[in-house]
């Protein structure tokens, strides 16, 4: 697994994917957080970085799909998939190697935003006026949301050898899990089951963790979502043997 992980990280670094992802994420978030008028923290008057946690899930839909779209599609297209799968290494360790490489990139794009957090602490009028609990929770939530997106992206990549198709499917699935369940639950015809429908979506659990109370059920939800997509990836990955 670590061999694959190392190879993926190296290819992220050598193909500039890593730098571009991190830079684009940081530019986009800082524009919204510090410069654009409506979402600007400085004008908002509250000592928190909530706009970041509202924006990041949306930006991640694009960015994470872009990071993961090539992971298996490219191998399939160039044929290296065959060299890889005929080496003495299990399918799961190939998938996990690629998964954790993607996740590492997500972590490294989130990490620099701690500077925003520090800035807000320094700018706040009174000492300890920042809600540390909520912010920590939000960071954990964002991380888990990223983990879920990466799993979805890896899955989208394994089902096709076309990177563009993989990118589009991944964006759709991320968007679907992030907010479509939310919208669905407000429909009239789902009355009675609407809580359950909302519960299926990422947003419900993401908001719940953001409050700063870490509910085990939310953590289990994210772990299950990640496992589900890794498992689906493994099934499709093994489909060469069907």
């Amino acid at each position, binding site marked *: 697994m670590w*061999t*694959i992980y*190392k*190879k993926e990280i*190296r*290819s992220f670094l*050598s*193909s500039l994917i890593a730098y571009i992802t991190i830079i684009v994420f940081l530019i986009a978030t800082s524009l919204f957080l510090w410069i654009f008028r409506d979402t600007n923290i400085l004008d908002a008057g509250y000592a928190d970085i909530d706009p970041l946690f509202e924006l990041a899930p949306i930006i991640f839909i694009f960015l994470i799909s872009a990071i993961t779209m090539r992971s298996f599609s490219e191998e399939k297209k*160039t*044929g*290296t*998939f*065959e*060299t*890889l*799968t*005929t*080496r*003495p*290494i*299990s399918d799961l360790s190939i998938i996990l190697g690629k998964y954790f490489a993607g996740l590492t990139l997500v972590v490294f794009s989130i990490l620099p935003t701690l500077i925003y957090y520090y800035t807000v602490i320094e700018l706040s009028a009174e000492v300890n006026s920042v809600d540390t609990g909520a912010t920590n929770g939000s960071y954990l939530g964002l991380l888990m949301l990223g983990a879920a997106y990466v799993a979805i992206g890896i899955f989208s990549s394994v089902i096709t050898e076309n990177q563009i198709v993989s990118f589009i499917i991944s964006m759709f699935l991320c968007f679907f899990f992030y907010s479509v369940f939310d919208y669905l639950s407000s429909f009239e015809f789902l009355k009675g089951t609407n809580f359950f429908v909302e519960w299926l979506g990422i947003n419900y659990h993401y908001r719940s963790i953001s409050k700063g109370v870490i509910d085990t059920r939310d953590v289990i939800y994210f772990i299950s979502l990640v496992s589900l997509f890794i498992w689906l990836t493994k099934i499709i990955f093994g489909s*060469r*043997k069907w």
Partner: protein
Amino acid sequence: MYPRFGHKFKNCLTSQQKIKPLSISVQQLTKTYGQQKAVNDISFEVPAGQVVGFLGPNGAGKTTTMKMLTCFIPPTSGIAIVCGLDVEENSVEVRSLVGYLPEHNPLYLDMYVKEYLDFAAEINKVKNVKERVSEMIEITGLTLEKRKKIGQLSKGYRQRVGLAQAMIHNPKVLILDEPTSGLDPNQIGEIRNLIRTIGKEKTVLLSTHIMQEVEAMCDRAIIINRGTIVADDNTANLRNSLKTESVITVQFKNAVSEDKLRKIPGITKVSSAGDNRWNLHSAGNEGLQESIFKFAVDNNLVLLESKLSESSLEDVFKSLTR
């Protein structure tokens, strides 16, 4: 569908192995894609240390068989055993014993040669990665190219990287799918030499549709057509078995009658090729040229040309896969 007798076969193999260790043993192997049988009930055995050429026209089932032997796809029925291990039951072990160069030699073009070989060594769980990688770079003649990106290399050098990758874990069995396709004559020569060197100590199964390649590199040829084996023998035997007649083309300076030529001992058929050229057919070619020369001297004829054409493996191939 054939019943699966994995264990039974393994037992009879071990008793056989005492006499002659088998590297590859394929029993009634079949692979079906939808309705089409890509490989249809083939059986063959390869003893350790043999270089076997797997021959056939495009789409004969060579690649499919190789993919099954390297555990990339499972057989529909039948069994394939590599070094005593079933490719389906002991997939991971088999994969660690086999070195594989797939068709079209897929490589990570944005990796550096050395970086890629390091990766290949690690994924094959090689113990002393550094030593092994520099050893392979030396054997395959990549010393000057090791700091280049694979994408910058010419096709011949990429092929060397592919071979280096396949041999890095010192596998017992090497499976090479069309290792020389698309190379220029010099590169083909180099790769052939390399394979011949490797073949001295390893079992090599290589596929090709070029006859000369088999004559140049292999001890034995298995010819496959439309999914079935049509010939399986030593390269020399294979050539002899189909050598029914040889033809000598001769040219004399002066005119000579057909009847006279027919009287040369050993000649079965005479046909004119115009301009005092004659095609002399004979069952064998022993002493034939000698008797033709003698005939020319006895009849005061000047022999300008005498050319013997033997049937080559190419002819064997053509006649078997038509």
